[in-house]
């Protein structure tokens, strides 16, 4: 069986190279009041990932929302060993930028196409933030349009 692959180009937010399994949500994530940093789980009541762990995942999401405690909460995930392996996001804010910096995980934004359309939870993703390249190995086939971005 052939495996579908795709490549995205984007801008480095925090440098580094890492690979892992994708966890994708189309909903923004709250830090304070939205995650449990010692468990590495989403806790927000109405969030589609409520109860799901982001530990060691390539977190693909629109960005941050809510309280200014975002960076400090995600900073504590690094101390607790529950941080994601990388962040790929589409909306730049001060919250997510500072959070990515203090989590010290490879992070990217400003993609040539929308990672939320292309990547699905469970895909294997290699992030090379230094070169601004994301390689995706898809677990389920996608349409040709998504693969090529045409």
């Amino acid at each position, binding site marked *: 069986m052939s495996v579908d692959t795709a490549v995205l180009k984007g801008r480095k937010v*925090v440098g580094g190279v890492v690979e892992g399994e994708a966890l994708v949500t189309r909903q923004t994530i709250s830090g304070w*009041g939205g995650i449990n940093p010692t468990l590495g789980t989403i806790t927000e009541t109405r969030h589609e990932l409520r109860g799901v762990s982001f530990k060691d995942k390539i977190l693909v999401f629109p960005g941050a929302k809510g309280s*200014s405690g975002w960076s400090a909460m995600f*900073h504590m995930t690094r101390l607790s060993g529950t941080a994601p392996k990388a962040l790929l996001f589409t909306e730049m804010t*001060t919250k997510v*930028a500072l959070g*990515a910096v*203090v989590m*010290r995980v490879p992070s990217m934004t400003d993609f040539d196409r929308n990672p939320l359309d292309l990547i699905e939870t469970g895909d294997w993703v290699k992030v090379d933030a230094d070169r601004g390249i994301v390689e995706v190995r898809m677990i389920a086939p996608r349409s040709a349009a998504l693969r090529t971005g045409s």
Partner: protein
Amino acid sequence: MKLSNEEKSMLDGKDGKARQKAMELLVRYGEALGAERLVATDNIAGVPGSSNPFLAKYYHQHGGGNHDAIFSLFDLDSDEIVEVPKASAHTCHLQGGYDPDNWQLLGASPEGFKISQESEAYIAGRGVQILKTCTPYLAGNVPKKGDHCAWMESSAVVYCNSVIGARTNTEGRESTSAAMLTGKIPDWGFHLDENRLGSHLIEVDFEIESVMDWGMLGYFCGEVVGEKIPVLNGKFKADLIRHKHFGAAAASSGGVEMYHIAGVTPEAPSVEAAFGGRKPLEVIKYGLAEKRRTYDNLNSRAKDTDVDYVMLGCPHYSLEQIQGAVELLEGKKVNANTQLWVFTSRAVKAVADAQGLSKRLRDSGAVLVTDTCSSIAQAVPPGTKVAALDSAKQTHYLPAIMNIQAWFGTTQDCINAAVTGRWNGVRP
């Protein structure tokens, strides 16, 4: 990023190790944002050096456990412990988790309270103003129009940008602590003119009067514009208190960091000026149907009408609001099955004490609490199943954080609930 000679000098360590580490963090942060430069700031509101049992334990095991260790390794995200000097820019400490007088009532652990007192003394020693409030603008920190600030606390950020016309992004703990030592913050987002223009026009075709009305309008705006900048058009008379509740609500349901009210707020002499001549992305009507839908959203987790707990003071109550609560309670007592806690800053409480308002609250069976709130301290009276609130922001957070029901209504509805033990608020 392009750095000035002064900034390069800090980065090279010529102004000491701590300022070097702070500048390193600001450069990493500025580059992450895509900022081109830093901007000078002399007004910082953060939580520098603040400790809690988690951080105290962690940095006891990794780094020796003193306050310089927490500030260096957590606040500045440095790999090296540095000696932390005095603040080089005016800095105030926002809300914390412990009222120095009522921490036991709020169920705090003696260990947690002791840790918080020690970190407070440490940072006060570095020249930080211990305001301990989410409303620094009611406790002595009022920037002027055009000032570049570095503030945390979403409700204070939206007030600072919209009502005062000063300029701040929603900063975080690490960026405000780095700004405290350098007087610099990335020149990005709301520091730049072009990012302060309106995006969505909200047409309001009826009078918005009570604090509850303003809270609902704010909650609606946040839901429809998300992170963008709403411009309100209608007949408005809003005082400071109404702006405070509107902005806090909009920053909770969405990520609103700035809004304009045509003819009212400082950067919106007219609707056209608020949009800088551009067209609105969308024109949205707020009428009775929208108001009712917002009320229903806010009250979606309330069912039982027996009220165990009434919380006022999110954002922290002003002196006028405390006075208003005292007057509504005049000649009445808080019900035996209900508790009423009113939250404010230490500065406002000092005046409330002098005015005799704190005593009158106590005589009615209510408690005036400082520094924190039920969501931050994760504190409600033991056994609370149902709360009553006059703040859309607190209604957004508290039921999820404490797993309780919450009613949202007017301050009068809340005082009535405190006195009778029952919720009798009316859907608009």
